[in-house]
């Protein structure tokens, strides 16, 4: 408890690589939820102790594959009703997860618990610069209210520049 400011949490976390289970990295974080504020996102500071795996190969492959598509990529319901994700859509799914992480951060309070439930829709938008652009509609499940909320997120991605989100 920090008087007149809010609640601060000190966390010790273990990050597990979804694509390389068994590889984990420790990190510490400080999260400050502002007092009374439902409009500002919590402040987050993270320190990663150790190295994250290089994904250069896979990034390049994905980037080239999407850039060489004749028609813009469009997909819906990832995963499908039975929990399946076609292998070629797996990177799209992972990118949606990243984007959802941002949205969740921006909308979290001490009384919410969000998870990405499903990607409802994704549409690639071709750009004149070097970024890839994906316009997503993601469905976020909030545990306390049990609501499933659709959210539009636009993600820009580039192998060296990484992911950037605009809502």
């Amino acid at each position, binding site marked *: 408890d920090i008087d007149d400011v809010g609640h601060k949490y000190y966390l010790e976390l273990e990050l597990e690589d979804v694509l390389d289970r068994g590889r984990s990295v420790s990190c510490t974080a400080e999260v400050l939820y502002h007092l009374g504020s439902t409009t500002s996102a919590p402040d987050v500071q993270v320190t990663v102790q150790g190295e994250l795996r290089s994904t250069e190969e896979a990034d390049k492959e994905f980037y080239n594959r999407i850039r060489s598509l004749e028609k813009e990529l469009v997909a819906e319901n990832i*995963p499908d009703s039975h*929990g399946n994700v076609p292998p070629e859509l797996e990177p799209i799914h992972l990118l949606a997860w990243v984007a959802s992480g941002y949205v969740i951060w921006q909308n979290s309070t001490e009384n919410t618990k969000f998870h990405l439930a499903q990607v409802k829709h994704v549409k690639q938008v071709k750009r004149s610069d070097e970024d890839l652009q994906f316009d997503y509609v993601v*469905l976020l*499940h909030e545990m*306390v209210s049990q609501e499933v909320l659709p959210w539009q997120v636009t993600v820009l991605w580039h192998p060296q520049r990484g992911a950037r989100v605009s809502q």
Partner: protein
Amino acid sequence: SFRVLIPDVQKLVDQSMPRERSNHRQVSGGYVYTKYHPMEEIYQWMTQIRKNNSELVTQHFLGKTFENRTMYYLQISQPSNKTKKIIWMDCGIHAREWISPAFCQWFVKEILQNYKTDPKISRFLQNLDLYVLPVLNIDGYIYSWEKDRLWRKNRSPYENGTCYGTDLNRNFNSSWGSVGVSFNCSSDVFCGPGPESEPETRAVAQFIKSKKSDILCYLTIHSYGQLILTPYGSTTEPPSNNEELMQVAKEAAAALTGKYGTSYRVGSTALILYSNSGSSRDWAHTIGIPLSYTFELRDTGTHGFVLPANQIQPTCEETM
């Protein structure tokens, strides 16, 4: 130092091999338990199960849903001259939690396949009757197959048909409407206009009330979260037999973890999840059923409600 990543590699290898179908065929004619099934197939499955195991299984009418579909439960009961206590289990109270009905079907299959050879199961059935309701919220389940995969509630209309569905797990008569609910129909935790307002709730409540002196344990299966929840959701005040409830739940969680390392947390809903009122588990306990639990099956949010079908088997095996 080292960390065990996979507790039992042999298990994983066995799982990825095509399964011997012969056992399943005896029990239910080649039914695939590692896939999710739509309601018509579950109805057919119930008929098949009863036919193939008529010495043990009877199918009973429980009630009708809002859209007038029939709710059936299966009774697994070994003929005996002594009256037996009952364990009741319902699945699928929330439409989108597909792993739940999948588990009820798996559970029935496991019992029927192994009761002659597994000493634990055969001793079980000598002393207890099992009542299983594979899908409680049939209308909602069908809706989640046909229209909206993430639907939760039932399908009764409100506000002149502009708004649908009551959260059946907020509709029971246990501190109804007090906390963790909405009185707005458009909410996913709408508790209905009154306790037991929904035909599905009434069908279950009436039956359980009628048998309550014989029911030892009430189980209701949900997802997700990997939790074993004890009463209550509406208050942090512990129930009178809290020690017993917790002890049994902890042993269950330990046995579950022992299978594939999946960890489950145990505790009262109000303490480890959120406050809610009108839940079936709380109601069962308040009318006198001593052991009342909500199981929240896999996972913890990675897939959430849309759990891949290839996790049906490990989820069900560990939960058994």
